[in-house]
């Protein structure tokens, strides 16, 4: 068919466009030469220099801590926000609330970053680790809220009603029924929040202070000075970690799918 050949071409070109730059970056992290255009042989030397670069390692450690903390707080807040949006169709200021959930998704980062900085200065908070955590929590919770919200929309409310009906009070019902069932979405939300936090340069640049230089800020300051294979190396490691995470996630969904199919078979056998 003509259209299928067209589709195949489009997809090949599209994915080539998306992946070739990343692949090149990974390949050149193993380049012994410092020059981009010259292949000087395979080498791990940039990984070694990266490892011994104390500034880079410190930044990585700070970024990881900021990521875990902000993703965790953001996931709690985002899940609560999603519950508010889905479960309470009326409360004062609901319009403003949903507006504040959706707006950060498209808000230019320079605006979010600058406004948070001005808040911290106005109330006299010293900028540093915790201000970055607060800033990241604020924008990542909105992403979590969207992810969890879409799961809650398809949630069968009668499961909660059944628990209430069987004598389980509302808060306990949430922890015994609702939360276990929306857990996959909550975990996905956490992972998204964590990645967004790892990724952020602009908001962190505005809200950070002395001693809290995150990895993107560090990478950015080095990139401005030019391409260095050392940065390629750390980028490769980050890409590798993300790829591993995504592959693990997709394997676990695949397994869940297989389990579902097996269950259906068991159910059918049960009849006969």
């Amino acid at each position: 068919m003509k259209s299928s050949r067209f589709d195949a071409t489009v997809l090949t070109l599209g994915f080539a466009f998306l992946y070739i730059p990343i692949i090149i970056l990974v390949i050149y992290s193993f380049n012994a030469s410092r020059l981009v255009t010259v292949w000087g042989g395979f080498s791990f030397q940039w990984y070694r220099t990266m490892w011994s670069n104390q500034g880079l390692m410190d930044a990585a450690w700070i970024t990881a801590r900021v990521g875990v903390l902000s993703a965790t707080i953001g996931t709690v807040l985002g899940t609560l926000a999603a519950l508010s949006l889905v479960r309470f169709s009326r409360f004062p200021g609901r319009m403003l609330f949903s507006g504040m959930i959706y707006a950060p998704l498209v808000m230019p980062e320079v605006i979010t970053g600058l406004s948070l900085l001005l808040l911290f200065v106005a109330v006299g908070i010293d900028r540093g680790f915790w201000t970055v955590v607060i800033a990241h929590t604020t924008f990542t919770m909105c992403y979590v809220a969207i992810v969890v919200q879409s799961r809650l929309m398809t949630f069968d409310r009668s499961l909660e009603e059944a628990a209430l009906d069987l004598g389980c009070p509302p808060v306990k019902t949430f922890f015994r029924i609702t939360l276990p069932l929306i857990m996959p979405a909550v975990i996905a939300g956490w992972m998204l929040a964590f990645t967004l936090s790892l990724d952020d340069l602009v908001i962190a640049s505005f809200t950070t202070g002395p001693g809290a230089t995150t990895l993107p800020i560090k990478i950015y300051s080095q990139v401005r000075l030019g391409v260095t294979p050392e940065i390629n190396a750390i980028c490769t490691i980050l890409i590798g970690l993300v790829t591993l995470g995504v592959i693990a996630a997709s394997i676990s969904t695949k397994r869940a799918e297989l389990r579902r199919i097996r269950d259906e078979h068991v159910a059918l056998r049960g009849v006969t």
Partner: protein
Amino acid sequence: MASVSETHAANKPGPARWLVVLVPYFWLLLFFAGPFLIILKISLSDTAIAMPPYVPVFQGAIGDFISRLDFENYLFLTEDPLYIRSYLSSLRIALISTLLLLLIGYPMALAMARAPSSLRPTLVMLVILPFWTSFLIRVYAWIGILKPDGLLTLLFQTIGLMGPNEQVQIFRTDIAVFIGIVYSYLPFMVLPLYSALEKMDNTLLEAASDLGCPPLKAFWKITFPLSLPGVVAGSLICFIPITGEFVIPDLLGGADTLMIGKTLWTEFFGNRDWPLASAVAVILLILLVVPIAIFQNQQKKVA
């Protein structure tokens, strides 16, 4: 008794459940909405050589407070053509990029939606995967490719498209900015388009064909109109943040690439003029209010 709260739980929160709403609500009020008021106030104050480098507008009595407010910063923005050109250039770049993204993203989304259903989850994952890798890294990857002594030059020289002394001169130009934007935002365009196209009932096209409509015409008469919500969603998700983009013009653009995000950054970090940077942000926000409102409306409809 707490009766009403239990039974109307579906509609409005009862006293015991206020916390669910109140905690995220106050967090967002404090750290998202609140700062906008501050930005607005600071944009109306004067610069000072101090830390913070502005004359606070919060001090003093109300009358004093009002009298201190001035529109000096906004006037300055209208006087210096740099700012107006930055805004216009940002909007122009965002608009052109969004159109480019649609041109590239639509065929991809369509091809994905028409792919065998067993293949679709993999294709979706392939689109999402780059999104999980750092934005900064992906922009950085292009520097090595686009710079004059970079890989693109090497490629063109190798295949004989260029002489050994010629170089690709697109690094630090608007073209590089467009490439970087299209590359970074492509997943955000493809995914909403795909979800709109994938939902579409295939029998509609069969019905059109059965009624004598040729495929290309069927696309324009059936497929495209039905995918419009995806087109709008994808365009807004891209257009709004691109307008305020900083990293891409800073790393790939040239000195003459004017984008408001970069101007704001320079004003803030370079010139340390916080009130002016705030004014720049306020105007940018005003420019984006309408697209953001449309985006929110659409999200609510989807939700």
